């Protein structure tokens, strides 16, 4: 017959509180004592059962919300007056965005409502000449226009943002009202943006003695820029990465040339900023191989060595020279 101490012992096991010695003893009892083993299974099933209840509740809530949204969408798409209203709103928004590009003023103000949220699949016929040289297109079609509150911009940029999503490339473009900048998801990072990271984190880097690492905290987010590479062709690439437990990315951002960075209408790379998270790097080693022109970035993170090979052609210019 199990007593209270046995029960507590099993509960401590599930809380991972047993010492190595206790764990060994615990496993022996599971192997040899039927009643003890059955109680362990019971507690595991109880814990799983509790989790199942919560998961079922979450699924039900979300399914109901999605069903409700589906109904609303169906009704909207069947109402021509609403379509007209929404389409008109989109045209106004897109028009504002368009004029923001035509008459770029660094300190200009763009009147957008605080939170406009319009989405409708029926907008395919409407388009705007949003920065057409982005993709050498005269125009792009947008099917989704809305304002977003935070896409990972630095705190200093008190901006309202609207996003436009085009149907041709399935990309998103972010328009910022007070700086009048375009952000193309999956494109390149702006010079200013990078510099901002650079300046903000220089001190932090020194404090933490992290080599060649820039991180920028922004509402709990952090992005790491590892290297700025000047290529033979005159183009620049910046290697960035971020990770957090089961989230990680690394990417290379490209600039065609330096002038490209100073363009009046700057293009920003933002895609991965959505998942910027905070993390620590213990050490970064840089190794090069002349044979295959590959640079290996080795990161020692939590005692695990992660190697990232990066193709390159010429010079390596660390962002921060010691």
């Amino acid at each position, binding site marked *: 017959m199990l007593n209270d101490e046995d029960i507590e012992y099993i509960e401590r096991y*599930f809380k991972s509180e047993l010492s190595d010695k206790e764990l060994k003893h615990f496993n022996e009892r599971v192997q040899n004592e039927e009643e003890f083993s059955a109680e362990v299974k019971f507690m595991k*099933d109880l814990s799983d059962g509790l989790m199942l209840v919560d998961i079922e509740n979450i699924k039900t809530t979300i399914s109901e919300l999605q069903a409700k949204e589906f109904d609303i969408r169906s009704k909207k798409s069947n109402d021509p007056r609403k379509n007209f209203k929404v389409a008109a709103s989109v045209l106004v928004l897109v028009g504002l965005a368009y004029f923001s590009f035509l008459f770029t003023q660094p300190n200009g103000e763009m009147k957008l409502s605080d939170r406009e949220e319009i989405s409708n699949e029926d907008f395919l016929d409407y388009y705007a000449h949003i920065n057409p040289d982005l993709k050498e297109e005269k125009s792009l079609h947008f099917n989704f226009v809305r304002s977003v509150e935070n896409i990972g911009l630095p705190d200093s940029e008190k901006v309202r943002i609207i996003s436009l999503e085009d149907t041709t490339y399935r990309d998103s473009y972010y328009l910022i009202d007070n700086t009048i900048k375009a952000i193309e998801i999956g494109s390149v990072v702006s010079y200013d943006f990078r510099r901002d990271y650079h300046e903000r984190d220089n001190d932090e880097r020194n404090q933490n003695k992290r080599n060649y690492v820039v991180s920028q905290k922004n509402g709990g987010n952090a992005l790491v820029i590892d290297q700025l590479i000047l290529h033979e062709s005159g183009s620049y690439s910046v290697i960035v990465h971020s990770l957090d437990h089961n*989230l990680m990315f690394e990417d290379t951002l490209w600039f065609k040339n330096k002038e490209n960075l100073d363009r009046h209408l700057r293009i920003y790379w933002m895609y991965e900023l959505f*998942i910027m998270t905070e993390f620590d790097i213990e050490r970064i080693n840089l190794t090069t191989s002349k044979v295959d022109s590959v640079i290996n970035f080795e990161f020692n993170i939590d005692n695990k060595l992660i190697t990232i090979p990066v193709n390159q052609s010429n010079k390596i210019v660390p962002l921060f020279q010691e």
Partner: protein
Amino acid sequence: MTNQNHRLYNSDESVINAIKYGDENVWEYVYKSSEHQIRNVALRNNVSHEAADDLIQDTIITFFKRVMEPQFALSSELPTFLVGIAKNICRNNLKKKRELRIEDHTPEPIEDNFNPSREAHKISKDILRKSSHICGKILRLYYLFKMSMVEIAEQLDYSNANTAKNQKAKCVKKIREQYFAYAE
């Protein structure tokens, strides 16, 4: 749920606490706070509208499992965190689809070891649903969120940890009886 309810969650911490303490309205808030961004992720990964619904659901359930981890802390703003999870799910799905064994420099995502037994389903569907509301609350906090009896007593307004402990023991005893009766 009204906007007034949403205002109760004035920080990500309040959302996490609401999840822990079983606030039924919190999932609507979590859903609405990130739905558009997760749909964007789905769109960019060529995920259909219907599959995007599943992606949102999987993302939120994964998030819930993360919240249950003892050392869990939000390392970014809630929508950002959820979008990160959604991206990870998309990437893993894509890998599975392609069945490509490519050299990967990213750490393996946390494996989902949640594989409840037939008996766990029985507990969930029958036994727990029949047990009292207070039992559900106390067991949830103890077994899912690994809270101490002191914390549970504070949260559920018990006079002290011992009272809470006794209540928990009674609840477990009842469930145990039904569980083993079913198992036999």
